């Protein structure tokens, strides 16, 4: 404010001085200049300098500086808005990349789990197949054994019945009881021999 007052005082002084100069000082060469078509009043020039010296600080302080502050404030506000927008954009980009990464991880996990399940199912299948095969084999083996036992038993029974029948037939032929242990053994040996030769 002191600067404005100084300029205002100097300006007013020059204005007053210019008016005084215009009314009281007469310079001869100015008449010649006026004759050339250029009417010059140096007092007016001095007063004009005073007017501008007073105007410069007034316009600067009360109009130009507030305008500059308003423009600067708006620019800084815009800059902060842009910075905020940029930050939000980068944050969104980061979130998006995180989301994409998580999505990719989830997909990879799901794929891995599916693969693992498939592998597990295949293993289970193999195991079950092996167990079933083993079970079937054991059942076949058992059946074969049972068949063999039945066959052996049947053969034994048949052989016993054949022996009985032979002895009965021989008894009928010979007319005596031949059902002793020695004859039984003979017939039995004979049947065995017959089986072998057959």
């Amino acid at each position, binding site marked *: 404010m002191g600067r404005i007052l100084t300029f205002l005082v100097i300006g007013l002084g020059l204005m007053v001085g*210019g*008016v005084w100069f*215009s*009314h009281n000082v007469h310079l001869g060469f100015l008449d010649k200049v*006026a004759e050339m078509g*250029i*009417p*010059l*009043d*140096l*007092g*007016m*020039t*001095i*007063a*004009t*300098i005073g*007017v*501008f*010296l007073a*105007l*410069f600080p007034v*316009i*600067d302080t*009360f*109009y*130009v*500086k*507030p*305008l*500059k*502050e*308003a*423009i600067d404030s*708006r*620019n800084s*506000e815009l800059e902060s808005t842009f910075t905020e927008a940029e930050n939000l954009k980068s944050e969104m980009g980061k979130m998006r990349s995180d989301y994409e990464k998580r999505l990719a991880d989830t997909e990879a996990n799901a794929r891995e789990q599916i693969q693992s399940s498939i592998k597990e199912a295949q293993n289970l299948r193999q195991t079950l197949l092996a167990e079933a095969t083993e079970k079937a084999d054991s059942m076949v083996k058992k059946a074969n054994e049972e068949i063999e036992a039945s066959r052996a038993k049947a053969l034994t029974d048949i052989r016993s019945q054949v022996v009985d029948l032979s002895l009965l037939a021989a008894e009928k032929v010979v007319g005596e009881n031949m059902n002793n242990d020695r004859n039984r053994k003979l017939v039995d040996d004979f049947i065995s021999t017959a089986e072998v030769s057959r």
Partner: protein
Amino acid sequence: MDSLLLNHASRLASAEGGEHTVTIAGVGVYLGVVLIAMFIYLSMAKKGFGQRVFKNFVTGTFEQLYLFLENMAVNTIGSHGRKYVPMLVTFWLVIFFANLVGLFFPLTPTAVVGFNLGMALIVFGYVQYEGARANGVLGHISHFAGPKLPGVLAVLITPIIFCIELVSELMKNVSLTLRLYGNIHGGHQAVEAINHLTEKFYIAAGEFLLPIKLLTVLVQAMIFCLLTCVYLGLVTGHHDDHEHGDGHGEAAHA
């Protein structure tokens, strides 16, 4: 109304006897009109400074004027040219409103040599002050001597260049003064002459020059400010290269 103004103007003009003599009081009256119009405009513009975006038309034009002059200063003088913007704004506003007043009134301050010489002397003095501040007093004076020449050439040519540059520097005042005076006063004279030619037909044909005069209003304000920037740039450009090198290429506000 028009005749009243003309009578008033002619009374002021003939106050000291000569038909072409303009008194300081007469110019003072018109300068008062100019300043009142200018401060009304500035006050209307200032009302809109609080808004985030200047919706007020007057504030918008003032902002555009400020940015235009800032760009002109930065492009012509350099990045340190911003500090001259308040002075340029003052010159622009006074010359523009004075020229505008000249469109509707028979006299205006910018149609007076003494007023224009005052503005030119302010520019001249400020340019010398800034030149001396930027380069030192001796450096600024030696600036007029042109480039350093070897041996005999320096003795023979440097004084001549110094004299020519000194005259050239002083002629800048005359140039600034007479250009503005010639354009505004000449415009008035042209309108009066054409009106005089057609007055017997009751037609003010001189008013058809209004579009050209309107253009002159703007162009003359701009030229005065541009030349001020050029003169300041010539004496402070060197200073800018050395002391404000980091500020090179700094763009003005868009």
